[in-house]
């Protein structure tokens, strides 16, 4: 079986009706925010656009889509009890996992870019400038690849990868930028922000102790650092995932013994 056939199957499998509905809802979040802000007469500013794109697209739509599509790469097959059809075939497990990762990345990248484009258009592109949106359209696929790599790896390593992924993205990444020191460097979002020329939400407008703390040691990351780190994370995550999947035993819990 060629890699392309495997890839087209994984994309077909990932775009079943229920997941498509979920994808449509997640894609709509950014544009809905843009409409609400425009209706409130706050549209058209770059700071406003940056805030909506960061919170609604980067930290919500892209991350959640990555969780939905990449976390189910292996664990979805195990809980769906279809894993035995895959691991008893003469196709290398590495090929299966990489196909699932690439399939998930393509879907997440396309959906995130569509969400970003719609948000930008609804946010009055004329005032912001299309270059600003274009920058995000380059960065979002990178984010999709990195998050999908990490979550595909978790999927091969853990029985319930979604819990860990949700904790990392929503409990850790959402708040890590307010912790002084180098903690923000543990967040993938920090590097994506650096690539997309976005400041952390609320930076520059300290209103409370948390914001003041965040200002004490702002994490400065160059674009080169960001590219290197993200590339390294993606490669290491996929390599780890491939090793785990190639050596792992995947038997649904209820089938064991």
């Amino acid at each position, binding site marked *: *079986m060629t890699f392309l*056939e*495997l890839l087209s*199957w994984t994309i077909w*499998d990932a775009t*079943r*009706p229920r997941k498509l509905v979920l994808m449509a809802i997640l894609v709509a979040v950014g544009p809905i925010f843009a409409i609400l802000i425009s209706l409130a007469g706050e549209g058209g500013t770059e700071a406003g656009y940056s805030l909506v794109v960061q919170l609604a697209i980067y930290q919500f739509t892209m991350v959640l889509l990555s969780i939905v599509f990449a976390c189910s790469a292996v664990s979805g097959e195990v809980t*769906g*009890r*279809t894993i*035995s*059809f*895959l*691991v*008893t*075939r*003469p*196709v*290398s*497990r590495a090929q299966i996992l990489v196909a699932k990762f690439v399939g998930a990345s393509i879907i997440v990248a396309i959906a995130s870019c569509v969400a970003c484009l719609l948000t930008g258009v609804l946010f009055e592109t004329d005032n912001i400038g299309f270059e600003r949106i274009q920058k995000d359209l380059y960065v979002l696929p990178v984010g999709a690849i990195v998050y999908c790599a990490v979550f595909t790896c978790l999927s091969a390593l853990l029985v319930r990868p979604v819990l860990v992924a949700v904790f990392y993205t929503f409990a850790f990444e959402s708040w890590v930028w307010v912790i002084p020191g180098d903690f923000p460097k543990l967040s993938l979002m920090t590097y994506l922000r650096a690539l997309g020329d976005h400041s952390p939400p609320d930076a520059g407008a300290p209103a409370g102790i948390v914001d003041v703390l965040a200002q004490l040691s702002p994490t400065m990351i160059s674009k080169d650092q960001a590219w290197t780190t993200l590339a390294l994370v993606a490669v290491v995550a996929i390599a780890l995932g491939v090793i785990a999947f*190639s*050596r792992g*035993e*995947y*038997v*649904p819990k209820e*089938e*064991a*013994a």
Partner: protein
Amino acid sequence: MIELRGASRWYGQVIGVNDVSCTVGPGITALLGQNGAGKSTMIKLITGQLRATTGETSVFGELPFANPGVQRRLGYCPETDSFYEDMSGRRFVTLMARMSGVQKSDVQQRVSEAIERVGMTDRADTKIAGYSKGMRQRIKVAQAIVHDPDILVLDEPLNGLDPVGRKAMGDLLQEYSERGKTILISSHILHEVEQMTNTILLLHRGRLLAQGDIREIRSLIDRHPHRIRISMEAARTFGPSLVALPSVISLRYDRSDSNFVELETTDPDNFYSTFADMVMESSAEVFTLHSPDNNLEAVFRYLVKG
């Protein structure tokens, strides 16, 4: 072809199979055992889904775990009833055929043949979500045979099949057996596989209890008293004739049910044929007849105690 040498598999504190040594060669071999006996674990060791905790499993002389060389020659029909529900049966079998190494140019023909062989041609293009249990079973078998493997491993393939389906499945496996293929079929129902093969592996609580010819094990069982429960019209008037039979060693009536009688026999086959003649002669109506000892559980009871 398939060999287990002292193979054990533990799931934490729970044992799946325990020190199993056996060889499975060409022909049909039935893997028998009650639910939880370790049949599926043994099959997962053979199909390369699990590694043995201790001991060794080999297929064609190689370790099967994640081994494409072995898996190319192996067809596996899992017990699980889970599928990619939105796919049609044909698309599913096509995907499995391609993953099993069937060339693109041959795949359509191979898939059509496999689907026809299991009698699913009419429904092959509808979604699996709408299939009955029997249809799902057939599609699972189709995906297992589509690449014409040398070894066919079927985990409880007769579940959900009607008598006609069972007969068709039996014929299919016989045909494969005659072509020199190795077939391992698991079941927890003795009489289901008795009609297909005489070669059995008997698992009980993870241990291989017996292996070889089923008739030898049968004859061992038949030497022990066999209980038969009959519910029939005028059981009490029939009783003296039954107890007079040389093969019947005891007989018991039920005080609350005048139609019920339970007897013990040392020669069940002889009893069944004599009893059929007696019923025909007297025209008495028999409501139910069954033997609690004529099942796999009784075989285990006997073998474990023996």
